[in-house]
Each structure stands twice: as C-alpha cells, then as structure tokens.
C-alpha cells in the first residue's frame, strides 16, 4: 500500500526557508505570489494489505520520526 505524507511547520513557527523563497520569488518578478510555506513530502510503501493497519504504521513513522511534533504537523494520504 502506498502513502503520501506531508509534513509542514506549524503556523506559529517561523519558516526561514519559506521566507527566503518568497523573497527570491519576488526578485524574479513574480510579484503576485505570496504566502509561501515550505514543507516536506514523502512517499512510502507499507507492506500490509489491511488498510487500517497499514495507515497505522505510516502514522507511527510520522510520529516517531518523520515529523517533529514540537514544530511540525503531518497528514497522510493513501495513494495506491
């Protein structure tokens, strides 16, 4: 079973990368673009045909490693 995982900084956490990217985008003349936030994106496979169990394992991977819950939040999506 394949999953997509999104890890993003919590809203109240400053995002230095997003901010720098936004500056750079403005410099490129793309002045309509704003509010850029940068996060991480993972794809992974879980070798378990039971959807609930598989999701639970993906969930665990997020909590234990992929996201730092002090500053980040995550969401999971099954894609196949």
């Amino acid at each position, binding site marked *: 079973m394949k999953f997509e995982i999104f890890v993003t900084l919590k809203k*109240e*956490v*400053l995002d*230095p*990368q997003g*901010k*720098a990217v936004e500056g750079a985008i403005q410099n490129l003349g793309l002045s309509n673009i704003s509010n850029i936030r940068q996060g*991480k994106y993972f794809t992974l496979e879980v070798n378990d045909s039971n959807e609930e169990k598989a999701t639970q394992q993906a969930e665990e991977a997020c909590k*234990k*490693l*992929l996201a*730092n819950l*002090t*500053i980040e939040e995550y969401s999971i999506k099954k894609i196949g």
Partner: protein
Amino acid sequence: MKASVIVFPGSNCDRDVQVALQKFQIDTTMVWHQETSLPKSDLVVLPGGFSYGDYLRCGSMASKSKVMNEVIKHAKDGGYVFGICNGFQILTETGLLPGALLRNSKLKFICKNVFIKTTNNQTAFTKKIPENKILSIPIAHNEGNYFASKEEIQSLKEYNQIVFQYCDEEGNISGESNPNGSFLNIAGISNQTKNVLGMMPHPERSIDQLLGGVDGQGIFQSLL
C-alpha cells in the same frame, strides 16, 4: 571525572571534544551509538557533526539511536549531559531540552567566531565563569536558529534556563549580533534541573591559543 562521548554515524567533532576533555584531565571513553549500556560516567557528551548526514532534520535520526535510551536515563538520574551543535539538536529531538533548531535565517552555513554572553552561571557547566562574561567562541552550523513556543520560552525564562546568548563584543544582545535568527539570541540552554546543557557554539574549538582562543575552557573547568 569520567566522560563518555557518543559517536553517531556522521559525528565529526567527536575527536575534537575528546582532545578537549583530555586536555582537562577528564577520563574519556568513546561510545558507539549502538551500545545498549553506558560506561560509568559523570558526563555524557553528544558531539557536533552531521549525524545521519543531517538528513530529514538535524539530530532526528540520532535521537532514536539505541544508546540514547541510556543517555536519557542518565540525565533523568541527574547525570550531566552536554550537547554541542549537532549534540544540541539531538537533545531537542529527544525532548531532553525544549524547542527546536531551524535553518539559519540566511539559509547559509556559517563558520566564524561569535560573541556569547554567559547569561546564567548557576549551572554545572558555567559555574566557574563570571556572570555575564562575554566569550568569543566559534560557531559552525546550518541549523542553529533556536525556536520554541511561547509557553516554552516563558518557562525557559521562569526557570532561568537560558545559559548563553549571542551578543556583540560589548555584550549587547541585538539583531545585529544574532548570527542565525535565533529567538532571543539564544545560543545555549539547559533543562530545568541544570544538568543538561545544549549549545550551538563549539567550546572545544576554543581551548588553544594557537588555534585562535581559549574562551571555551571555562566550560570544561566548570565541570571538574
């Protein structure tokens, strides 16, 4: 005084810190991250470097190493734990210290001497440094931009956990003297019980006049 230096895959200041500890006659053992027990030690050092390549988040994967269970136990029992640079990042990832270290605000690796103020000399790591003493110590990092939630900052202040702050030569703590965007210019913090210290600057690089300075030695002397 006995110390253990934990070696993670990708640690690269492990030897540097060993040299420093030995210079102050601290008996030092290197401990591989997969060990399940610690040699008897008063102090555990998590050295600088790029554990696991700094991939995912700095310190994240090292914080899950087997030996870290023992380090956490050691800290909970009141033993000293000292995280330098990547070691600091590992300590925040384990939760032994609050907050997190984000990318430097200019998104570049910075290696240079900076000034830090010893805001708190009531810890085992700073007790021989005069209060508010300004030290010149190098930093070398990409992710040293300290962040913590409002509540965490509140509690850091309340329990007097801010140990070092970036400043200028005269001791002014300002935006200009902040090399990486750190909240409140924080360069180092301790836990509430003051037996765990994490700092981004590298005191082990500042113990030899030939290499540019000796301001780091106060920290090692405090531990003796």
